[in-house]
Every structure is written in C-alpha cells, then in structure tokens.
C-alpha cells in the first residue's frame, strides 16, 4: 500500500513549513515568514525598517522577509502555508479568493495605487486615453486594470505586447509606452536620459489598494495576536521609513544591487504621498475601508475577472 | 532487338576481334596510412578480351589493385594504362554488394550510368531494358530493390555495369554474399555474357573453384604486400557447365591454384 503513504508524505511535506513556524516560539518571539511580490525595493521599505529598527521584535515577532521576483506566487504560498504573510495587490486578493484561495487583507501600504502607464513626454499626450490610441503598449497579459482601461476607452488603437520588466524598449522606441510602478520604472528611465510621462491608473477611476499584506483566514483565526502585532509593527516601520529611509535603503540595496542608492532615495521620496489618505490619517498608516473594497469588487465583476462582486464581509474582517 | 543466350554457345564475337581493352600495369605501388605498402612494384599485363581471375587471400590487396585499375584510387607509384578502343575506354565496376539506389526501380537503377553521362531518357531506358534482358530480369523492371532477392539484386548490378557497353568489366568478389546455387547460376550467366560481348573481364575472388570455373587465366597473389606468385592459363574447355565442376581436369587445375596460393603464404 505505497500510494496512500506517498500521498500522506507529500501532504506532510507541504504542511511542514507551516507547522514548523507555528510551533516554534524562540526567545525573540514567534517566527514567521513574509513573502514579497517583487525584489527588495522602496515599495517594501517600511517592512524592512520594522525589522531593522527592532519593531517586529518589540511586538514579539521574528520575521523572515523573503524577496521575490517576477512571477512569485505569493497568494499560493500564503494559502498553502509556506508563508504566513504576503504582499499582493487588492485586485489579486479578490481574484484569488474567487478561485478558492481563502486569504484576507490586513494592511494596505499604498492608499493610492502606484500603478501607471509611462509614455514619452515628447509625444505630447494630454490624457491616458491619448496614449492608448496608437503606438505600442507593454502590459502584462491578464492585468485587471488593462481590462478596465479597455472597457473605459473601448477598442485600443495601440498594439498591446507583453511587459518584460525593464525599460530597454522604452528607451529605444519613441512610440513605446508601458506599465509601470510610479516609484520604479519612470525613475530608471529618467536616470538613463529618457523622458517618461506617467499617467496614474488611479486617476482613471481604478484605484485598488496596493502593497496589501495578506494572511490565510484560518491562520488569522488561530493567531490573532501575531496578526495584530504585525500590523502595529508595520505601521511603525513605515512611519520610520518615510521619515528617514536612508539606513533601510542601504540594507535593501545590499539585497538588490541592481538598483543604485540614488534611485532608492528618490523612489522612497516619491512614495510618501501615495501612502497618505484621509482614512490613514484618521486610523493610522495601512488602514482600509469597506467602501473601497466594495467598489473594487464591483469593478472586477464588471470587467469579468470575477463572476460576481464578493460579499465584503467574507474577507474584510475587523482587526483583532 | 535483343540477342538471347545462344543455346549452341557459339560466341557472337571471335576472341580476336574483341571489343575489350588491354590492361597494362607497371611498377604499381600503393601505400596506406600506416606506411605499409599494399602493392609494391607490381607488373601485370592483361590481354584485350580476356577473362582473368585475381586470386589471393583476404586483405592481400587485390581489391585495391582493382580500384586502381578502375581509377577509383590513385597509385603512389607506377602506372595503369588501358589500351585498345580509340575513344576513352569505358570501365564498369561491380561491387560485392549490389549497391542499388533503394528509391529507384530496377530499370532506373540499371540506367543510372547513362543518366549520369547525360544520355536522354528514352535512349538510356532502351539500353537498360536490353541489359536487363541480358541478365534475365526483363519481368522485374518495375520492381524496387527491397522486393528483390540477393541474387536478383546482383543481376541488376551486373546489368547496370553492362548498360554502357563497357570495354573493361571489373568485378570485386560480386557473388561472395550469395548462396551456392545462385552463385553458380550467376557464374554461368557472367561467362555467357563475356563470351557474347567479348570485353575484358577482371574478376577478383578468393574462391579457387570460382576462379577455375570462370576464367581463362588466373593470377595468384601472395599475402600483403601483393606479389604475383602464380600465373596460370587454365586448360579447360571453352564450354563451361555444371558438369565441369566434377570433372577431373577441373580438379587438377583447382589443385594447381591451391598450391600456388599456399606458396604465397595464404
């Protein structure tokens, strides 16, 4: 009877990392893993700051931060137990939930989405609609906001090609436009001597929370105190980082030498306003409102990414 | 029109006015990679229209000699001269395997040499049909090589060699891979063709019986490097048939050849 044994073995293998983290209680506090959805960059600055300034430790957590890259399956890893905390976009969260991944958001770094479209300023575009009319546009296939833009503007005149994660093509082709994270690609292009002009997707009416920390719902139910600790530490970490990012930037730069120190600094500076909102001022950095999640759910249903807008109460849980 | 095998055996050509060329080999030398000479200063003379067997142990260099005569190989010393027909002498070669082109049928295979020389389709096919009829394959012209037996394939190879009406026919142990019965039948067929067409035939073999049966003259070689250790005119009737193989005279000639072979260190 080898097959059942093999299946049990595989199941244990999958559960093992989660088990190990759950059970361990080192002198420094509970040991958890935070998995990022990109390489260490200023968009995660607050979390690294929380670790570096001892913020996590003060709240009784030992956090291992795992950087990612293109295509890291953050939601799958959190849902599968390989990581307790993960970073994702709000639309990813709702999409994953619709496919059966039971993860819930607890903290939203960016109150305004840093997603944007970067075009050549020399073209003289006035609105994003202009950009979409001609030339080449590089967007990851399947991105919800691409569907949103298509719905808003109708058939796009520009040819849509896959996004390869850099600015090489942008520098070479004057009719080229591409998706960007407002704190990343435009800065890289400007440094190389390009003339990027950024149109925020948020300005078009599609503004999901970004840099959202997610946890598995069942894990939240079992460890509410760790979740609370994380949120508090993250809030402190981001406050510290936005005030003075230099030390944390050094740490991240060592992990990600591809981005130079100067860009780290300018990106951190650009991020600051995106983390601000009325709600964040009132309730603290990273807090979220029901209404915005509801709006997002409706928008995703309208473009067909999910079949119907999910009930907000299913996932928008009051924090412990 | 095609002349079938004469039942009386009377040749269509007298030996004297044969079409074949005279082959003259002088001080021939061929050395191979290791520096070991395979042929070292060989002299040989073959009369026009004669049927000569080259007999010797395996690896002695008789195949190399044949290739040098054919022009498929170049000597390191000495000369090979073909005298006879006023035009450039036509040489044909039959290998140990039939080596037919598997994607062509019998007729197209037989016609190949003429095709390569630029003869047009109708003419070359006509010649091929004649040659195939000479070897008794008139019915098999549309077949592909894989549909033929070993003996039939060898006969196609023979027809291919004869299609250009060569002056010199060189055969390198052509029937060695065939069974006894087929071999004897092909021996008869070859000899009959020689009698009728009157060309020069040089036939390499390591079979004493075959040499004795087929040839008028047998040149016996020693082991490498090849040296002539025997050159016998075979005193046997011009008419060859199966009965001859059990004749006393045949056995005597065969023994003489075997003795020569042994002396050569076979």
């Amino acid at each position, binding site marked *: 009877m080898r097959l059942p044994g093999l299946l049990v073995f595989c199941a244990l293998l999958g559960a093992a990392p989660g088990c190990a983290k759950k059970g361990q209680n080192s002198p420094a506090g509970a040991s958890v893993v935070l998995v990022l959805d990109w390489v260490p960059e200023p968009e995660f600055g607050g979390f690294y700051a929380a670790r570096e300034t001892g913020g996590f430790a003060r709240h009784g957590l030992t956090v291992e931060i795992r950087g990612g890259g293109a295509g890291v399956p953050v939601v799958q890893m959190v849902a599968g137990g390989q990581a307790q905390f993960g970073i994702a976009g709000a639309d990813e969260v709702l999409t994953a939930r619709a496919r059966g991944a039971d993860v819930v958001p607890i903290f939203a770094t960016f109150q305004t989405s840093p997603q944007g479209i970067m075009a050549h300023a020399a073209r003289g575009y006035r609105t994003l609609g202009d950009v979409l009319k001609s030339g080449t546009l590089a967007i990851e296939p*399947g*991105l919800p906001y691409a569907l949103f833009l298509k719905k808003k503007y109708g058939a796009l005149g520009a*040819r849509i090609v*896959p996004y390869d994660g850099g600015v090489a093509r942008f520098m070479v082709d004057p009719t080229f436009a591409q998706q960007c994270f407002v704190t990343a690609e435009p800065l890289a292009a400007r440094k190389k001597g390009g003339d990027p002009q950024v149109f925020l997707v948020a300005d078009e009416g599609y503004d999901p929370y970004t840099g959202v920390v997610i946890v598995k719902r069942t894990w939240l139910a079992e460890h509410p105190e760790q979740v609370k600790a994380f949120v508090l530490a993250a809030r402190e970490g981001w406050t510290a980082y936005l005030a003075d990012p230099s030390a944390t930037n050094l740490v991240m730069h060592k992990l990600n030498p591809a981005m130079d120190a100067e860009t780290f600094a300018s990106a951190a500076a650009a991020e600051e306003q995106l983390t601000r909102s009325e709600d964040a001022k009132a309730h603290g950095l990273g807090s979220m409102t029901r209404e915005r999640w509801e709006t997002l759910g409706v928008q995703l249903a309208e473009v067909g990414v999910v079949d119907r807008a999910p009930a907000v109460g299913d996932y928008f849980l009051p924090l412990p | 029109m095609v002349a079938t095998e004469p039942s009386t055996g009377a040749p269509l050509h007298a030996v004297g006015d044969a079409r074949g060329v005279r082959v003259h080999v002088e001080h021939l030398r061929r050395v191979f990679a290791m520096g070991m000479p395979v042929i070292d200063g060989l002299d040989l003379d073959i009369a026009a229209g004669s049927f000569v067997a080259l007999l010797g142990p395996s690896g002695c260099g008789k195949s190399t000699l044949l290739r040098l005569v*054919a022009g498929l190989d170049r000597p390191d010393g000495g000369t090979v001269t073909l005298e006879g027909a006023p035009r450039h002498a036509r040489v044909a070669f039959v290998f140990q395997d039939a080596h037919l082109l598997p994607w062509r049928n019998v007729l197209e295979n037989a016609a190949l040499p003429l095709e390569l020389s630029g003869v047009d389709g109708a003419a070359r096919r006509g010649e091929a049909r004649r040659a195939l009829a000479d070897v008794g394959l008139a019915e098999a012209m549309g077949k592909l090589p894989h549909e033929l037996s070993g003996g039939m394939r060898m006969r196609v190879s023979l027809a291919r060699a004869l299609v250009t009406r060569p002056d010199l026919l060189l055969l390198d142990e052509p029937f060695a891979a065939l069974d006894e019965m087929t071999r004897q039948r092909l021996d008869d067929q070859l000899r009959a063709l020689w009698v009728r067409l009157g060309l020069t035939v040089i036939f390499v073999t390591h079979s004493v019986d075959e040499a004795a049966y087929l040839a008028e003259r047998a040149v016996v070689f020693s082991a490498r490097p090849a040296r002539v250790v025997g050159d016998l005119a075979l005193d046997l009737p011009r008419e060859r048939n199966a009965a001859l193989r059990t004749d006393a005279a045949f056995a005597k000639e065969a023994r003489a050849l075997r003795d020569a072979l042994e002396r050569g260190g076979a």
Partner: protein
Amino acid sequence: MRVLRSLMPPVLALVVIVAVWEALVRVLDVPLYLLPPPSAIARAAATGLGDLALAASVTARAALYGFLLSAVIGTLSAIVLSASRVLERALYPYTVFLQTVPIVAIAPLLVLWFGAGMRAVTVSAFIVSVFPVIANALAGIRSVEPALRDLFRLYGASRFATLTKLEMPSALPSLVTGLRVAAGLAVIGAIVGEFVAGFSDSGGGLGILILSSYRQLRTDLLFAAVFFASMLGLLLFGLVNLTGYFLLSRWHPSARETRAAH
C-alpha cells in the same frame, strides 16, 4: 478495425488517468487555483472555445512559418556543411549553439531587433527548431555508402548530380526524423516567443492566453490552453509523419513496416 484496436490502449489509459485525477481533486478538496479537475478544464475549454481556437490559430501560423524556415534553412545549411569537412568542423559547433542557447533569454533580444509580433515569434520558433534539421540532414548526407559515391565518381557524375540524385534521397529518411523533432519544438518556440513578443489583444496566441490566465489565477483555462498547445504540436508532428510516410513508404524499411502493419 485494426486502427481502432491499436487506438484502444492509449484511449483507455487516458480515461483511467482522467477519472483518477477527477476523483483525487474532489476527495482531497484541492483548491481550483492549484489543480483544477478535468471537468473544470473541460468547462473552461467549452466556454472559452472561441478564444482558445483563435489563439491556437495564431500560434499555429507562427509555428508553421518557423518550422518551414527551419526545414528550408536547415537543409540548405546541411548541404553547405557537407561540402567540406573543414567547413563542417569550423561551423558545426555554432549550429550546436543554436540548440543550447536558452530561448527564454534571447527572446527579449528578438523583440528588440524585430519588434513585437509575428516576425519575432516566428524567429523564436525557427531558432528552437532548426538544429535537429541540420544535424539529421547532415548525418543523412554523410551516411551515403562510399561504394555508391565511387559509382557516381566512376561514371563522371557532376557535384550537383551527386547531390540531387544520391545525397538528397539518401538523406531523406534522416531528414524526416529531424523534421519530426523540429515540429514539436517549433510549437514550443512559438509559445515562448509569444510570452515576450506576442500581441496581447485579439492577435495574441496561446502563449499570451497562458500568461493572462495565469495572472488571473484561471488555472482551469491555463490547463485548457496548455492542452490546446499540445494538440497543436501533435497535429504538426502528425502532418510531418504523414508527409514522411508518403515520401518514403515506397522504399524505406521504416515506413514500409508501418504500411505492412496496416
């Protein structure tokens, strides 16, 4: 009747695999985004059939063009390489490079040079599939029996005659083998090319569909797209096989056995 009987074992195996898969997913309650059951995949294929078929046709075009390029350029290259041993020794290692270079790495370069779209995708399909054609065609040409070469030389055949009447027909069985391998590789090359260079809207091929369904966690649609990609590869492979059969069955042992079996 015999054709049906020979199809039975693989069809039965497929039925068993599908049944076990469906059962396991249901029993173990595997989430949809991780491993969808065959029923979900079939449903996704049914509802998305229009998109899948369109995408498959786009990929098929690029794969076919790339394959044809490989067939022609590959064969010509083999002929050139066979002309001299020195040339072969000098250039062959670089053709091996075509085999070993990771296409995922140079695909972005292709976009930079050719621009996104059918051209870059076709070139990607070509690069991935050309080496087996060159290698096999060259081996086929080199495998000509020396005695046949002697024969051609004896009768004064020109280089061209030797190439067309002896070397090419001799090399055909090897070439067909190389083309069989190239067929599947051309589809892979096209899809990888699309990952980087495909057009994302209606002009996108299966590569784009795979990327976007992955991004939206539509794992069932992703599986359906992968299935269509495999079918495409199988179709092209089958076409090459059929062509090879017609070209060779008259005289080549391998094709003849197939004929005899039926």
